[in-house]
């Protein structure tokens, strides 16, 4: 089943490839193919979820490809990766739909790159081999680079794309070295073999730092955050959605799968360091968020703050903390794309600006949009009944056991997130309608459906998180360090 997930998007992009990009009819055909491919993938992943056995912490649906002598490719999922796969297959159709109507040039390659990205992202979460993990972890870079440069909107997009590329690549170099070291010692890069082998604390520490650097760039943790808000601000909407929704989750997944799983002693040893960095990131980026003037970079900055709470949860070494971190990263995967659709899609398409100060009083003409925007703003602040709330609270409950001070400092995010989110919402939506804006139509049916599609899982899982929790209890409990 997993191989289907990986192959279908590629088949879809191959189907799109021969179509000529000359008429509206053809364009619609390509869009339909891309969308239906990603929807089929979503369906398959849901079937995967249904068939998933929650009573074991082992990898399931394992598929090994070793027919060719030089190629050994094995995939499988467990409770942790299952939800990231689901998130990817869920976000991809939304990303495709969000730029359905406003890409006028090169739509073909736009769609193809998103389908390929879907395959690559799913591959990151399902491969059971450290080296393949590295390859796919890096492989999204060129595609996203192209998306930002070709389809982006900002004037500085080339520099942004370059920064994004360089930051991630520079961090990952160390990961590659670490993987080579592991390979030379263990003799394999297979996940299960690595987790069985003993690595001495001394080398664990060095390996840990190398992996951590790669993931810290991706998370991102301060001071390696420079690429995030630029890449978000200058990429097209769909790119932002993917970046916030799934690509930031590579790091979360990496922490869980590699650092905690393979290097437990070092993770424990470096726990205080990580907590300090996460707290610094949380408070600094929250304070910096408040003064952002670009709506998209404001939301990008707020992602940094949320991801640092995720880090706190992951390194709490408690079941609550790790489960909370997984919940929060999923919640962030729903809410952040939704906010990007709100400000980068709905508002930007109508007003043509992303500067907060230019927009005022949208509620006068766009009441329905404002309601949805308000709900997502609240979810972003971690309001109860949303998945974000549970994630945040569980993460902080988890970290309390390690250090109450860190937990209390982490809770400042509750105040700060309210400050910037409500400032953004209030500034844009309320007040007298700005005389420099034309009367705009309320959100279209398509935008409405997109937002609702993101809202439903946030709220439903916020009320019944056990749907997810039941299947991650076992894999999470194997991550604990005694």
């Amino acid at each position, binding site marked *: 089943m997993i191989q289907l997930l990986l192959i279908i998007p590629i088949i879809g992009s191959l189907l799109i490839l021969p179509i000529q990009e000359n008429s509206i009819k053809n364009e619609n055909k390509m869009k339909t193919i891309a969308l239906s491919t990603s929807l089929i993938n979503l369906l398959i992943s849901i079937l995967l979820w249904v068939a998933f056995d929650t009573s074991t912490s082992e990898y399931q649906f394992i598929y090994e490809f070793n027919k060719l002598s030089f190629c050994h490719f094995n995939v499988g999922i467990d409770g942790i990766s299952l939800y990231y796969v689901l998130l990817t297959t869920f976000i991809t159709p939304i990303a495709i739909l969000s730029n359905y109507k406003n890409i006028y040039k090169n739509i073909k390659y736009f769609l193809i790159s998103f389908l390929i990205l879907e395959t690559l992202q799913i591959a990151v979460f399902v491969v059971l081999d450290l080296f393949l993990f590295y390859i796919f972890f890096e492989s999204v870079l060129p595609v996203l680079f192209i998306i930002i440069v070709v389809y982006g909107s900002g004037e500085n997009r080339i520099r942004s794309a370059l920064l994004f590329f360089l930051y991630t690549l520079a961090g990952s170099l160390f990961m590659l070295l670490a993987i080579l070291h592991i390979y030379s010692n263990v003799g394999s890069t297979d996940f299960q073999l690595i987790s069985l082998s003993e690595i001495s604390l001394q080398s664990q520490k060095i390996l840990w730092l190398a992996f951590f650097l790669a993931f810290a760039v991706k998370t991102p943790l301060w001071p390696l955050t420079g690429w995030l808000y630029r890449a978000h601000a200058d990429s097209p909407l769909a790119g932002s959605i993917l970046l916030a929704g799934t690509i930031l989750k590579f790091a979360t997944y990496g922490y869980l799968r590699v650092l905690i799983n393979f290097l437990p002693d070092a993770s424990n040893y470096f726990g205080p360091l990580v907590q300090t960095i996460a707290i610094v990131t949380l408070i600094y980026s929250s304070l910096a968020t408040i003064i952002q003037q670009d709506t998209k970079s404001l939301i990008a900055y707020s992602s940094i703050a949320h991801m640092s709470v995720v880090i706190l949860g992951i390194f709490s070494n408690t079941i609550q903390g790790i489960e909370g971190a997984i919940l929060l990263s999923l919640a962030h995967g729903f809410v952040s794309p939704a906010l990007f659709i709100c400000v980068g899609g709905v508002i930007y398409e109508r007003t043509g600006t992303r500067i907060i100060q230019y927009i005022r009083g949208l509620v006068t003409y766009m009441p329905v949009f404002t309601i949805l925007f308000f709900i997502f703003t609240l979810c972003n602040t971690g309001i109860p009944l949303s998945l974000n709330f549970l994630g945040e609270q569980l993460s902080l409950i988890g970290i309390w056991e390690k250090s109450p001070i860190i937990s209390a400092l982490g809770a400042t995010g509750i105040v700060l997130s309210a*400050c910037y989110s409500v400032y953004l919402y209030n500034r844009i939506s309320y007040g007298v309608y700005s005389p420099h804006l034309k009367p705009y139509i309320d959100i279209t049916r398509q935008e409405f459906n997109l937002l609702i599609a993101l809202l439903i899982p946030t709220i439903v899982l916020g009320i019944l998180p056990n749907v997810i929790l039941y299947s991650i209890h076992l894999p999470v409990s194997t991550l604990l360090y005694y």
Partner: protein
Amino acid sequence: MYLSILILPLLGSIVSGLMGRKIGVSGSHIITCTCLILSSILASVAFYEVGICGSPLSIHLNSWIDSEFLSISWEFLFDQLTDCSMFIPVLYISSLIHIFSTDYMSEDPHNQRFFSYLSLFTFFMLLLVSGANYFVMFVGWEGIGVVSYLLINFWFTRLQANKAAILALTMNRVGDMGLSIGFFALFALFGSIDYATVFSLAPFMNETAITIIGLLLLTGAMAKSAQIPLHSWLPGSMEGPTPVSALIHAATLVTAGLYLLVRSSPLLEYSSTALLVITLVGASTAFFAATCGLVQNDLKRIIAFSTISQLGYMVMAVGLSQYNVALMHVVNHAFFKALLFLGAGAVIHSFADQQDVRRFGGLINFLPFTYTCMLVGSLSLLATPYLTAFYSKDLIIELAYAQYSFSGTYAFILGSLTAGLTAFYSFRLISLVFLTVPNGSRNAYLNAHEANLAVIIPLFILALFSIFFGFVFSDLFVGIGSDFFANSLFIHPNNISIIEAEFSLPIFIKLLPAILSLFGASLAILLYHYTPNFVIELTDNSIGRKIYTFLNGKYLFDVVYNNYIISGGLHLGYMISKVLDRGVIELVGPYGLSNTLTNTGINIGKLDTGVVTTYSLYITLGLLSLLFLVFAPILIDTSLFSEIRLVIIYLAALVLVLSPSLK
């Protein structure tokens, strides 16, 4: 039945909010009011079952979070505290405010939205008081915060409303932060955040830990119940429509903090430190708000400060361990404060939307009914004997003295003074609005009229409650030996002081608050009605003006917050964003790196000058250094360390020699 009490307001809200266009204005009125009234009737039945018959119950719906030993359920608890002390005032007052609003908001174009918000607010309030663990309570807690943001922001085009709403939300979030940390601590200590588990284990726990938890819960309560120093959102939030002020700031939202403290009574009772802090905070707040209320000129703001002051009394009562008295005051206060707010709303509405008390006067002849209601409300607020508040407010002051302790005496002195001040500002309001010479415009007087039935009925009912409720129910709530609250409240046997309060106080102490109230009220009427010139002269000198500015500026709390805390935070954010993120990190990181590489390339390129003498210099230097490198170890017989030093010296010399050509 119990769950339908909760669900009905939500249904009303959904119908009115999401289908407002279909059902129309009157449809929305009918549906929301019907839902609320039905819910109130059911709550009355529940009051009979739970309160009178004494049969509390809990309803377990579903598991919410299940993670290792953290197990939280969607569970609701209907006991005496929930049902009698919170459901009744919340639902009754909410229903009356719904009815009042049908007239008050009738000219507003957003009726459906307004009623949807009102009902939603009621729903969250009910959720708050009926949750059986701290997390379910927190859902309601945050819900009322959000809906109050929406309600304060109801007239969203007004900048003042926007500011007040943001302030209310963010300041409440400060409390939420404290409360959240409290939950973490609770979970770490008890392994559960169910009321039942936590309260039954509280006696066996470390007192310091309980103190910390108690103080964290107090932080949450301080923000919601507007205690110093987290009070400043409440006066500002008077920017919302008047029914909102009545609903949020009199009866319901602000009592949420009180509810939290009262609900946590089995916890707080085991920490005398937390109780001491609570007493001090409450007493100080009561006095502070009363002094601010003396010199406010906005009709609603005066009542808002009165609310903060009364909340101070309630918190003080909690600190004195007299939870049932605090609850009695919550209920009483809900009735008479709602009456005052709705009366104020009626005055404002009938007098050309004027809110400045200096521009009223002589309305007693125009609005006799409203005047009566306001007078009843004010007298009740003053704790005039046998009116409602007498049975709680007076008792709180007496109980404070009966502690015979430092904190008790502190609370007693401030409480008595506050009683005098309360009388003063209440009668200042009555006197300025209704009694003195007319100060408004002629047109406003010509159009002044009593409101219609939808306003009169709620006012009348609330006035009845303000007069009789205390007399009828005081024995049930605060009577000596009443076991009405059964297990829902816990007062440690050492802390019970009602008997001392009833029988041991000197008669002078008992009468002191009443005397001060009488004095304050008479002084207010005298000053503002008979000798207004004297009041003007009083502040017409430098000291008077300074005191006036200080009090009118609410002890300059806002100035401190705005100039130091908030601007400091923004400045820090600016520094981080501009100086660190886009400055230093950029210079050291990507920009600096690319810059350095480019410059180095350019500089090395510059070495290639094309002049033969330069090349001969390079060759000579190269040769010299090579010779040096080869022979240095022989010439100077040294160890490895000094060799490295030599190499460094050599490299430095090389750079020094070449540096002219690098430019």
